[in-house]
């Protein structure tokens, strides 16, 4: 059976290659940072939690003291790219489509045909594993078709990775922060505070506090999944459903979407907001968030209205 562990070895090998290329390039900080990440992927399951913690602290120290720099591996110039794009035409899109195609079609086939009975993949892990297979297939196709120098994919990947820099592990680090917050009981404290600020007797105000709590707590945690159980337990279920008799389906579904409005407005949702700014090489780290606030705020108001109308006015 193919498990996540296979993917960790694959990704660990990629990070190790990037570390070696950085070393050859004389970029010590980058080499150390990617070597530590490679160690985490290759050895993380076999060393103690404390050692994993030390790996995290060492990576953060390198990044925090400015050890990660952009790199500039040799590549093609603008004119060459225009010329080869004219020569290769729209076929250039095909290798890029291989990855989503294998991930999406493979997931559907695996779940809705007898293929799933083969238990080839670890349960509920098939999409990411198929993504990894898609990457290998796309790489092989591109290498055979384009015949670039042997190190080109690694060097082009390193260029992109180093332009993302420390932001590449920020989403994973934030997920770890969420776990520490949960351990320390932050959610219960926030839920207690939110539950205690509710004015008595007003359905609309209670809906407002619920939706606001979802959005703000999501902004703090960077993830509506962490906020939802807390807000549902503090306000959604005891007050809106049991106190005022609202429709549970609306309160659950649209409450989550009010949280998603918070996701659009926070740097803590790094993989959606900070990583793309780095990938697009924008000068302003918060440029994507700035474009999203104007959508998130009116949409949050819509969600309040949908909960109020759908869960109470139409329901009773």
């Amino acid at each position, binding site marked *: 059976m193919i498990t996540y562990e296979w993917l960790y070895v694959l990704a660990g090998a990629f990070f190790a290659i990037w570390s070696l290329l950085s070393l050859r390039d004389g970029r010590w900080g980058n080499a150390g940072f990617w070597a530590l990440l490679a160690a985490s992927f290759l050895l993380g399951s076999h060393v103690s939690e404390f050692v994993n913690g030390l790996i995290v*602290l060492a990576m953060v120290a390198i990044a925090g003291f400015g050890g990660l720099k952009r790199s500039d591996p040799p590549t093609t110039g603008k004119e060459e790219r225009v010329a080869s794009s004219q020569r290769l035409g729209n076929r250039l899109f095909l290798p*890029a489509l291989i990855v*989503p195609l294998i991930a999406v079609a493979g997931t559907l086939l695996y779940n809705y045909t007898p293929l799933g009975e083969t238990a080839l993949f670890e349960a509920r892990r098939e999409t990411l594993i198929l993504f990894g297979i898609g990457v290998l297939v796309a790489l092989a196709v591109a290498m055979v078709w384009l015949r670039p120098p042997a190190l080109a994919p690694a060097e*082009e990947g390193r260029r992109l990775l180093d332009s993302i820099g420390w932001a590449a592990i*920020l989403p994973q680090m934030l997920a770890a922060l969420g776990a520490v917050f949960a351990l320390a009981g932050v959610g219960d404290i926030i839920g207690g505070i939110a539950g205690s600020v509710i004015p008595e007797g007003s359905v609309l105000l209670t809906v407002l506090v619920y939706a606001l709590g979802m959005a703000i707590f999501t902004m*703090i945690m960077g993830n509506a999944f962490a906020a939802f159980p807390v807000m549902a337990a503090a306000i959604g279920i005891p007050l809106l459903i049991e106190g005022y008799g609202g429709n549970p389906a609306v309160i659950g579904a649209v409450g989550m979407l009010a949280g998603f409005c918070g996701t659009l407005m926070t740097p803590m949702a790094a993989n959606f907001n900070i990583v793309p700014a780095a990938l697009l090489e924008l000068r*302003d780290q918060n440029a994507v968030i700035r*474009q999203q606030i104007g*959508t998130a705020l009116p949409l949050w108001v819509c969600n309040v209205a949908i909960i109020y109308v759908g869960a109470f006015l139409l329901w009773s």
Partner: protein
Amino acid sequence: MNYWPLAGIAIVVIGFALRFNPLMVVVGAALATGVLAGFDLVAVIEALGKAFNDNRYISVTWIILPVIGLLERYGLQQRARAVIEGMRGATMGKLLVVYLAFRQLTAAIGMKDIGGHPQAVRPLVAPMAEAAAEMSHGELPEDEREKVKAMAAATDNVGLFFGEDIFFAIASILLIQGVFESAGYPLTPLQLSVWAIPTAICAFLIHGSRILAMDRRLGRVSQ
């Protein structure tokens, strides 16, 4: 109740506001939160290490970078621009509104892995949006070009967030179902996912009209 663990949140907010390195801020917040909740430092480092290790699957996605980088070496971005330049009447507004609808609809039928920032936005959607904007408005000042690219990324996010919950077998719907079931309110995923539709329509109308407004504003700026 011990409110001290909330100091971790304050560290995050202040650290991000003062633009310290976000990794330092996050780890500082994690260590402070754990210690203030009464754990000793070694236990907090262990918790951090375990949680980082358990979440490695998040960073696996970077293995796509060699594919994207290799195709960019052979002119993928230039090709994406050329496709738009070859379309008569293509505007940034139309392009991104179509992409928004495409992203919402595919996510709504469970295909949320079509699209995304490394695979689609950087090599395809952002250069296409930029090319379309320059076709209708001429050369753009640098800060306006950045806004167009940022809007392309924002459109991917809005389309994903407010499409995916219409699909019933998605993690967030299953989480809602789980929380409500353990509180004594059994719901089917379908009962929940139909209630994502009104918000999805609002998201399309709001974000779509903001895209079109941006396109009109670019027309005024460039004149």
